[in-house]
């Protein structure tokens, strides 16, 4: 089982490196296919949204603290708080709420 983890890590590292390497070394002209370009543009937003919800509700000890962290995270990001600030505040919200309800 343990050696398998290293194969997983190798697969992760190899795929991620190739994704970053190939455009930098091979593509010297701009991508022209509009649909493909648009697809790549939308991918990060869709995939991060899909990964965040509903997983955030199951990440904590209570569904309610997870929901509160989601709402706090959305509001803080909306009003321009930094990546670091949003991450820390989401954690703080969960901690405080679970002091009360868990």
């Amino acid at each position, binding site marked *: 089982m343990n050696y398998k983890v290293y194969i997983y890590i190798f697969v992760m590292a190899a795929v991620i490196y190739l994704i970053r390497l190939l455009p930098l070394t091979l593509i010297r002209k701009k991508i022209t296919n509009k*649909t493909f370009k*648009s697809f790549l543009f*939308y991918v990060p937003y869709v*995939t991060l949204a899909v990964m965040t919800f509903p997983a955030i509700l199951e990440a904590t000890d209570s569904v309610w603290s*997870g929901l509160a962290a989601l709402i706090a995270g959305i509001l803080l990001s909306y009003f321009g708080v930094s990546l*670091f600030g949003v991450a820390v505040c989401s954690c703080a919200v969960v901690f405080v709420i*679970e002091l009360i309800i868990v």
Partner: protein
Amino acid sequence: MNQNSKWYKKGLRDGIPIALGYFAVSFTLGIVAKNAGLSAFQAILAAALTNASAGGYAGFTLISENASFLEMAITQFIVNARYLLMAAALSQKLAPKTSTLHRSLIAFDVTDEIFGISIGVKGTLNPFYNYGAMTVSIPCWAAGTGLGVLMGNILPQSLVSALSVGLYGMFLAIIIPPARKNKVIAGLVIISMALSFAFSKLPLISGISSGMRIIILTVLISLAAAVLFPVKDEEQSTDEL
């Protein structure tokens, strides 16, 4: 050569706030790694070799589910597909004569944040700027991940529970500000979350592993958006900054 060391120092300086942020965020990634059963060494290795938050998160989740290697490869491709676009944009920012060696080294650490600062540099990009930023940010990313694994055992459960949402907070901080400026992205974020919720609850579909659900939903929704709302060049370049 003098020019290179000047750029290296500038990269170091600009990399410090990024490194501090990485340290805190990767700590929560370490907790995910610990929950997936990885040792501190394995988590540090994975973090240092991938330098990817969403990719690391998805990877550790798949490891805990004992997914196939093919599923891992496809998921990593989908989750990190944005780096294709960023790397392509960076290739335009480099002087055309930049050697393949320099291009290969920069490629190792094309992250949201380092992409952001290197595309923001005036004129052409000197690879030594990236090397400076990488020098501070990669060790912090790896060390934070390792500490997350180790401290996860020591910290009280209430703190671990709280820190588990840090990564999601970071994801929100990446997707919400562009959603505020761009109605299509805002709509996509809402639809993505709604469908993701539905997929996790519906009979039959909820049996699919979460990794496959991420792939299927991302491809379907992004492709539909690309066909219905093709992106204009100017719009894309401002949003990526």
